[in-house]
């Protein structure tokens, strides 16, 4: 029997008349890393807030750990670890004190909390900043501290809302590494992101959200196989030549996508497509061949890109 930690059916969130989450269904299994991929305003955070029971459900049904978020919020939250989209560390407290007080909010004893703080600071690579104030920490450090804080109660389910948005590549990779470790140790993770590489790297299964709805669902590989041919050729042209080239693309690849700055050709065989380009006298300034990604899946499904 597979264990579902979260089950949602027709889950809906409205703000007045505006529908932020539009009757979505999903199950999150114990031990998996589940992703919500979608652009700004897709409804990811609204969904997370309903799962964490801080936002009342407008319509539909959901259970978390088999409990009802409307009436058993405290019990649910006592087993969650939450990393919000915006850091909300307590600036009046030091690094270690931020962890300590969350342990207390979870009714842990001081003797339980203190050894855990040591472990978590080590995990977050913040041991040296233990007694530092929070304000001067870098963005990556604050994020790691927020993750450590979410782990203080040894949660059964960890919810991360855009864990790496706004971080530089180095800080992102360090964070991914920490999340991998959690995964390896059997944690159940929910991750929202608008970075397809993040979803590809971290998620076992994901849903693609757009305008409050789920538009596709599966493992990263499945989604790419299903919605996008294997390879993508990106063409960039000199000033004014793109439109002319766009007229000559008929039948050259499985599918083409004409963007503001470039043309994307989706194909199962990049070599043949490139040959055809040459034969038709299309000479781009720059040609880049790459494997297709979830970004391409998203483009196919919605006609828009994930990050504007």
């Amino acid at each position, binding site marked *: 029997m597979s264990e579902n930690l979260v089950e949602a059916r027709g889950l809906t969130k409205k703000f007045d008349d505006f529908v932020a989450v539009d009757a979505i269904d999903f199950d999150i299994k114990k031990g998996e890393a589940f992703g919500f991929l979608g652009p700004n305003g897709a409804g990811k955070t609204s969904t997370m807030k309903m799962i964490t029971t801080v936002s*009342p459900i407008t319509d539909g049904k959901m259970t978390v750990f088999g409990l009802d978020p409307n009436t058993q919020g405290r*019990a649910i939250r006592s087993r*969650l670890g939450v990393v919000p989209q915006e850091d*909300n560390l*307590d600036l009046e*407290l030091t690094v270690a*004190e931020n962890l300590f007080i969350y342990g207390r909010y*979870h009714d842990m004893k001081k003797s339980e909390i203190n050894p855990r703080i040591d472990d978590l600071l080590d995990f977050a690579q913040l041991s040296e900043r233990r007694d530092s104030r929070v304000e001067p920490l870098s963005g990556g450090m604050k994020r790691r501290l927020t993750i450590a804080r979410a782990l203080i109660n040894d949660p059964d389910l960890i919810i991360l809302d855009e864990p790496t948005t706004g971080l530089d590549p180095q800080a992102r990779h360090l964070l991914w590494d920490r999340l991998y470790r959690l995964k390896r140790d059997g944690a159940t993770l929910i991750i929202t992101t608008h970075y397809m590489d993040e979803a590809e790297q971290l998620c076992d299964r994901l849903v693609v959200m757009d305008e409050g709805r789920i538009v596709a669902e599966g493992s990263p590989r499945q989604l790419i196989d299903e919605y996008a041919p294997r390879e993508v050729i990106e063409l960039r042209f000199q000033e004014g030549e793109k439109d002319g080239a766009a007229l000559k693309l008929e039948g050259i690849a499985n599918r083409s996508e004409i963007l503001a700055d470039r043309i994307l050709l989706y194909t199962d065989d990049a070599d043949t497509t490139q040959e055809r380009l040459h034969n038709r006298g299309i000479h781009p300034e720059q040609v880049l061949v790459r494997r297709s990604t979830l970004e391409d899946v998203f483009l196919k499904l919605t006609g828009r890109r994930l990050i504007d």
Partner: protein
Amino acid sequence: MSVEAPSRLTPIGRVTPFRAQRIWEKNFIAYRRLWKVVFSGFFEPVFYLFAVGIGVGALVGDVPGPGGALVPYAAFVAPAMMAASAMNGAVIETTFNIFFKLKFQKVYEGVLTTPMQPSDIAIGEIGWALLRGVLYSTAFVVVMFAMGMTRSWLAFLAIPAATLVGFAFGAVGMAATTYMRSWQDFDLVTLVTMPLFLFSGTFYPLDVYPPFIQNVAKISPLYHGTELLRGFTLGIVDWSMLGHTGFLLVMGLVGAAVANRRLDGMLRK
């Protein structure tokens, strides 16, 4: 199918119904480093007492206290300083400080992802303002006592009375904060507390005013607080003190109820 919770380190059974005291714990940790702020809260009314009570008192001599008996000016003005400082302390704590945490740091949004809930925060923060108040009023009464400004052992009842003043203003302050949009709105706070401070029978008996103005001044919650404290420190107690107590109690309870409701709506969208 949903299933039973997996085994865990912190037992789920430990979900207590009341945990406002966690907010005190947090504030206590933070204030350990902010002891200067704590001290200023004590010295401000003491400085006023020296300047106005003793300085001005030397010029004024005795004034009619509650019931009409003449008392030294310092003994008259000291309980009013104490009431005003209870008001100011509670108002500053529940308006400026809470607003900052609510709007800019979003601290409470994080707190609410733990088993804490909005009522814990409302009760915890108002309670914290009171706790600080108790500390200050105790110190202040001791100073008054040492300087011979108290007339009765009843003076020590001024401590719970000042706490009641703090509760009334803290609860209303917190409720008001949930309506604040920007820092500009805080000018209103000063606009309300300043005249209360000046015209609540703080520096002179209300009967210097014509009867109409006297009645207006009696709406002032600080007037009720001042009368209550003055009665205790001067040892002049009558039934009107029940009325003052009732006024402040109702004000505090209404404020706390509104604060709790509003906070819930703001934080759980």
